[in-house]
């Protein structure tokens, strides 16, 4: 048990000393996850709204597909993205393999089904009287979409936090697509995996603490927004 306590102590030192390897991993994680969340929210919110709000042929199978993609293993996504951006793949010429952008692409694919599924479920549960109220107040179609999304913002925010949790803690994509290159594409999770395999628990625990701290900050922000 001593090595765990020792790990905690060392973790605090690493963070206080602003250890370069630790902080580049934190930076890589934040960059990749921010890009991934921005892209998945931009694409996922409208897709989720359409899926939840409108009735169209093929809606049910599409919902089933999105729900299935929720359980997509990160290594499978890593494999798909690797195949797409490796030198032999269709996007090989862009040189995205072993880059933060490549990791962000994979993480976008990971977060997208979560955003779509939770937005669709939230929108489906909108009170039917809301639309009637908006129509009776003279809202145009675009006003209705905007106001409906605003009315269910907490549900969607909960979806975004869930997706962020998946993105932040995944290892498979970052390892396969990023290559775990020190000072470049090493993220918090790949670093933890590596340090633990080397027996360097302190580094692993330090990075683990940072992950928990980021998750804590996101939830505090969400809580403050809800109160407003």
């Amino acid at each position: 048990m001593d090595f765990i306590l020792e790990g905690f102590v060392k973790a605090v030192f690493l963070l206080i000393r602003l250890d370069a390897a630790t902080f580049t991993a934190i930076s890589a994680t934040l960059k990749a996850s921010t890009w991934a969340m921005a892209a998945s929210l931009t694409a996922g919110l409208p897709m989720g709204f359409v899926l939840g709000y409108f009735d169209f042929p093929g809606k049910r199978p599409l919902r089933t597909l999105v729900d299935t993609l929720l359980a997509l293993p990160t290594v499978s996504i890593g494999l798909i993205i690797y195949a797409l951006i490796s030198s032999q793949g269709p996007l090989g010429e862009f040189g995205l393999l072993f880059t933060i952008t490549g990791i962000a692409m994979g993480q976008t694919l990971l977060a997208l089904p979560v955003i779509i599924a939770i937005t669709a479920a939230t929108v489906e549960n909108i009170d039917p009287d809301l639309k009637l109220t908006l129509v009776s107040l003279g809202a145009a179609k675009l006003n209705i979409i905007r106001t409906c999304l605003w009315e269910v913002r907490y549900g969607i925010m909960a979806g975004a936090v869930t997706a962020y949790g998946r993105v932040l803690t995944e290892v498979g994509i970052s390892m396969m697509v990023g290559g775990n290159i020190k000072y470049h594409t090493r993220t918090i999770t790949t670093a933890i995996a590596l340090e633990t395999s080397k027996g360097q628990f302190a580094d692993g625990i330090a990075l683990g603490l940072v992950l928990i701290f980021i998750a804590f900050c996101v939830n505090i922000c969400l809580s403050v927004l809800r109160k407003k």
Partner: protein
Amino acid sequence: MTRTDPAYLLENVTYLYGDKKVLDIAHLAIAKGSITGLLGPNGSGKSTLLKLLAFAMRPATGKIFFNGRREYPFSPNIRSRVTLVTQKPYLLRRTVYENIAYGLQIRRDTADIQTRIRRALARVGLAYEGFAHRQWHALSGGEAQRVAMAARLILKPKVLLLDEPVASVDAQSAALIRQAALAARKNWGTTLVIASHDLAWLFDCSDTQISINNGTLFSTGMEIIIPGPYTTGRQGLTKILDNSQCIVLPPAARSGKAAIIRREKIHLTTGRETDNRYDNQLKGQIQSMHMTGKQQEIMTTIAVPEMTFMLGLDPELTGSLLLQPGKEVFLMFRSQDIVWR
């Protein structure tokens, strides 16, 4: 659009829920600036009609003209003119101020907005200082309904549609909502269409009454609908009210029709008659009596099991029979005066 065009003209309008036809209106005209009372039992199609008039839904067939022009949902011509208040209004997850401001903000008509919100709240008896910054969840049912009403009144609508606006609110809120609705016509010439179970108010304030049952309109409001289910027994076709009373009906030409009796065919007495002129003699109790300014009648609501009858009585008759709320009375009518429509 001409000055003589009615506010609404509906021609051959139907509406379906799935395969079931819930509204079938061959012709309906509603005059500008009028107050129309919609009467009918629950599930008769009143709310569906109001939603169509609010252009919140598209009819399955037929045409709806507004001010002489055929209109559709989201048309810019109706968006700023027609508004609907429902029985349980939805308030946006915002403050009272933001709820009332919403309609003006989407029209980009925000000049002097605070004063207008203050005035709109005052119209429904709510003080700006006490309510403007309250959240939607910090309101009682009556206050929420009044805020919903204020959110519509601030738009100075050409048409105000009210779907059971006072059904689930306290007496004070109900009085303020009624007062605000009638003030809209007085101040801005607003056309009102009101569906309410408060028959006394409806008869008192409305220029025209329309009865509706099974999605079909009866134009005058003078009819009383005897809703189904109808039962065939020893006495023939009947509407069973309770263990001791039933209404004897004439044979129905075909199913799907409603039994209707005109108000003037019903006689009211304080005792049972022994001759067999009337094969229907229903025992009931007077619920309310209300003097109407327009017809110089006393609108009297009589409750019998499962049904309410609203009769316009001559003041002399009510005096001679010493009628008063709570008194037991008998409603007499002949089954042959009941028609199927």
